[in-house]
């Protein structure tokens, strides 16, 4: 064994081979480049074609929309990476597993039980926070049971998730039919994805909640690296596997609630973003993957929305294109057998 370890030919060609994980500057450079690109896009977004009149008003509008897009992007990117880590799988996203459908169902049930008027009567911030809390508890229980039971059987997981999603959606749809049309309008606004219509009243709160959740996820990055190994290795390394799994699922639920509340469900966008983050960074370190996912999502959304809204004059909608591209990418992953 030792004689092979010291094979002089190989050792000479790869002198750094034995040095363990060498300090790699590539991730930092890529992240820096992405941050720069995003800053550039944001500047174009804010300042392009700004006339002399009404500057303050237009800048305000643009800033609101920019903030919303970035918030949604970060929430989708980070939640997808988190979910893929906890599910030990690169093909699943929270949306494919029915997280956002659960949020829409929760909304529908709330509107019915509290009544559209009662709901409007609640301060939107308080209502939003309550929804997030309920959503986290529900998601952790439901998906926690699913993951802690049968995580090793990926096809079964996908199937269960798809069925759950369909179930949630059809229950919401059914409730929508029997409810009052006015109440239904309240629900409908969160049932379809649109980057053009952003719920601005919730924005400051949504930004704060996202920042908090992302900070918590970032603090967990070392533990996430261990979680990503899979259950047995993680337990054997002394990770409190159950607790971390549930905590991560709760964070995913919070982030999905934020993005769904702001722009509605986006099924496949997260998949593109997570694929990009993994492909660009080529590492399993979450300290790098999480910012990479957030940044690439923000670049895609801000850049894409700028293209469609300002250049193509809404000839097509970004949400449709994103979903189409994401769906193709999903099929590509499935066909390549990358179900891992």
């Amino acid at each position, binding site marked *: *064994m030792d004689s092979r370890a010291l*094979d002089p030919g190989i050792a000479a060609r790869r002198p750094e081979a034995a040095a363990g*994980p060498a300090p790699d500057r590539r991730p930092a450079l890529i992240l820096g480049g992405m941050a720069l690109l995003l800053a550039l896009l944001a500047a174009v977004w804010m300042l392009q074609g700004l006339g002399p009149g009404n500057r303050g008003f237009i800048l305000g509008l643009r800033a609101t929309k920019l903030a919303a897009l970035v918030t949604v992007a970060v929430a989708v990117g980070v939640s997808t990476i988190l979910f893929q880590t906890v599910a030990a799988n690169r093909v699943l996203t929270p949306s494919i597993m029915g997280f956002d459908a659960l949020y829409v169902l929760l909304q529908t049930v709330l509107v019915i039980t509290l009544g559209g008027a009662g709901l409007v009567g609640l301060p939107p911030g308080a209502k939003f926070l309550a929804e997030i809390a309920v959503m986290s508890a529900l998601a952790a229980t439901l998906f926690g049971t699913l993951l802690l039971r049968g995580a090793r059987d990926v096809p079964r997981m996908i199937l269960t998730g798809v069925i759950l999603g369909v179930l949630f959606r059809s229950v919401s749809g059914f409730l929508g039919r029997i409810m009052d049309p006015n109440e239904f309008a309240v629900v409908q606004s969160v049932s379809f994805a649109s980057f053009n219509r952003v719920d601005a009243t919730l924005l400051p709160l949504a930004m704060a909640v996202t920042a908090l959740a992302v900070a918590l996820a970032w603090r967990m990055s070392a533990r996430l690296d261990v979680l990503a190994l899979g259950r047995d290795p993680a337990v*054997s*390394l*002394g990770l409190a596997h159950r607790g971390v799994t549930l905590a991560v699922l709760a964070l995913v639920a919070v982030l999905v609630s934020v993005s769904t509340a702001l722009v509605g469900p986006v099924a496949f966008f997260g998949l593109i973003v997570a694929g990009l983050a993994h492909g660009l960074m080529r590492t399993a370190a979450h300290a790098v993957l999480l910012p990479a996912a957030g940044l690439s999502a923000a670049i895609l959304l801000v850049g894409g929305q700028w293209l469609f809204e300002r250049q193509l004059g809404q000839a097509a909608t970004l949400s449709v294109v994103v979903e189409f591209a994401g769906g193709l990418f999903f099929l590509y992953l499935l066909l390549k057998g990358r179900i891992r």
Partner: protein
Amino acid sequence: MIQIDQVSHQIGGTPILHDISTTLPKGRLTALIGPNGAGKSTLLRLIGRLEPLQAGRITVAGHDVATTPTDRLARVMAILGQQTAIASRLRLSELVAFGRWPHHKGRPGPADRARVTQALEAFALAPLAHRFLDEVSGGQAQRAHIAMAFAQDTDWLLLDEPLNNLDMAHARALMSRLRALVDHAGRSVAMVVHEINYAAAWADHVIAMKDGRVIAEGPAAEVLTEALLSDLYDAPIRVGQHLGRPLVLHHV
């Protein structure tokens, strides 16, 4: 010492282990043997708290596995399961580096890095350190997993069929390395092994299991007899002698 008291286990209502009580002596190399489905992996996974204990009690060096915090246990024992699939895409050096996690919790120091380098070299992996796990052979991947457990640097090392996929030379090298850990570093090793002659040649203590029960245990020379092995595997097995140790002629 690992103390196992009245441990029973069932999966989906089917009893797998029946009221097992035994000890694995400290400072020894213990081999767990027995036919497929005997319950060896299940017992090892219960010791390594990979499965929750249903009935009975297990202590590892005085730590009750059911109540001791899991991160504390990770500094007492390292366990490598029979299925070694890793979900993330890692380089061999990164995988082995995870073995240090129980000690640094995400902030590796120079001592941790030195230990990882040492483990990579010990298992002849240094030239492959920068390859991804899915870009090396089965035996090389297996050695990387063992190196990771080795880097964890615990008093107890629990290995489920570590010889899987290893060629003759690497299998023997692993056994001699485990022997050295026991003899010179005061460690204790428990391993499941199918190739009975590795147990005959290297193990101090042998525990034979069949149908979820321990049917014999003791020093290797006492357990590895013609009568017992023929009974254990339900097949006639002859045992010879080589250099004063049993040589099991199971292949003829």
